[in-house]
C-alpha cells in the first residue's frame, strides 16, 4: 500500500512537468478510465478458471451508460483476455460463446439506456447522428474548446 501511495503522489506531482494540478483535467482521471480500471480489477480477482463473473457483468453494464470509449475499452480488455485464455485451451467454440457473453451486458445496458431516454424524453436517442458528429470533429469544422 505504501508503494501505491508513493506512485500516486508522484503521479499527482509530476503532472504538467511538475508545475500543474491534475484536478484541472478530470478527463485523465476516473471520468475516462474508471470502467476500464474496474474491468482490470474484475478480471484479476476472478477465481481460477472463471471467464465471467458478476463483477465483469456489472462493469460492462456500467460502461454502456458511461461512454462509447468506455464500452470499447471494457470490451477490448475482456475480449482480449477471453481470446488468449481460449486460444491457450484450444477451445475455439467456447471462444465464440465467451465473446458473445461478454457483449450481452453491453447490449442490455444500451437497450436500457435507449428505453429510458425514450420514456423520459419521448424520442429515440439520436445514435444515428454520432458518425456524422465524429466526421465533423475529424474534419475540424467543429472547434473543440479545452486542453483535454
Amino acid at each position, binding site marked *: 500500500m505504501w508503494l501505491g501511495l508513493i506512485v500516486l*503522489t508522484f503521479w499527482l*506531482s509530476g503532472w504538467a*512537468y511538475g508545475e500543474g494540478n491534475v484536478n484541472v483535467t478530470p478527463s485523465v482521471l476516473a471520468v475516462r478510465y474508471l470502467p476500464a480500471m474496474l474491468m482490470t480489477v474484475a478480471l484479476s480477482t476472478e477465481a481460477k478458471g472463471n471467464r465471467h463473473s458478476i463483477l465483469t457483468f456489472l462493469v460492462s453494464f456500467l460502461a454502456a451508460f458511461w461512454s462509447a470509449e468506455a464500452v470499447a475499452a471494457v470490451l477490448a480488455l475482456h475480449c482480449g*483476455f477471453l481470446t488468449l485464455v481460449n486460444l491457450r485451451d*484450444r477451445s475455439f467454440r467456447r471462444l465464440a460463446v465467451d465473446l458473445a457473453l461478454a457483449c450481452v451486458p453491453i447490449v442490455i445496458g444500451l437497450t436500457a439506456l435507449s428505453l429510458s431516454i425514450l420514456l423520459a424524453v419521448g424520442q429515440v436517442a439520436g445514435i444515428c447522428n454520432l458518425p456524422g458528429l465524429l466526421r465533423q470533429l475529424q474534419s475540424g469544422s467543429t472547434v473543440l474548446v479545452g486542453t483535454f
Partner: protein
Amino acid sequence: MDYSGAGFPFQLTIVVVVGVCCLTVIGGRSSELPHWTDYWLRRALPAAMLTVLASAYFAGRSVDFVILIALLPFSLLFIPASLWLANVATSRDGIAGSLLAIPLIAFLWMSSFSLLYLFRVGSPYSLVVQECRDHGRCMPAALGQGISDKVARSTRVGARNRYLRDDSI
C-alpha cells in the same frame, strides 16, 4: 521534468507481459512452461492491456507528460514485480539483490520528489499541510469553511466568465 525517455519502461513491460502470455498460449495447457504463466494471464495481462489503453492517449498527443496517465496501470505490474524481487533477494540471491537496486532507487526518487513538491510553498495543490501551515486552518471546522469559501469563489468566477463570454458574442 523531462519525459522524453519515459515511454521506454512502459513499452518494455508490455512487451515482456505480452511475450510471456503469447508463450503460454502457444504452449497450451500441456506446455513445459512453469505454473506461474497462468497467473500472468489472469493478473498481468489485464493490467498490461490497461497500460496500453492509457498509453494510447500519449501516442495521440504532442504533449509528452501525458504518459503519466499510464503510470497507475503500470504500477499494477511494477509493484508486484518489485515485491517478488525483494522476496527473492531475501533468500540471498545475488542477482536479485543487485536488480532490487532499480526499484529501490526509483521509489526513493519518486517519494523524495513527490513529498518535496506536494508540500512546498506555492504548490498547485492545497493539502491539509498547506492549509494549516499557510492559512492557519488546522481544525476540521476551519478546513470545511475553507472548502466552502473556495467552492463559492469558484462558482462566482465561473458565472462571471460565462457572463463575459456571452457578452462578447
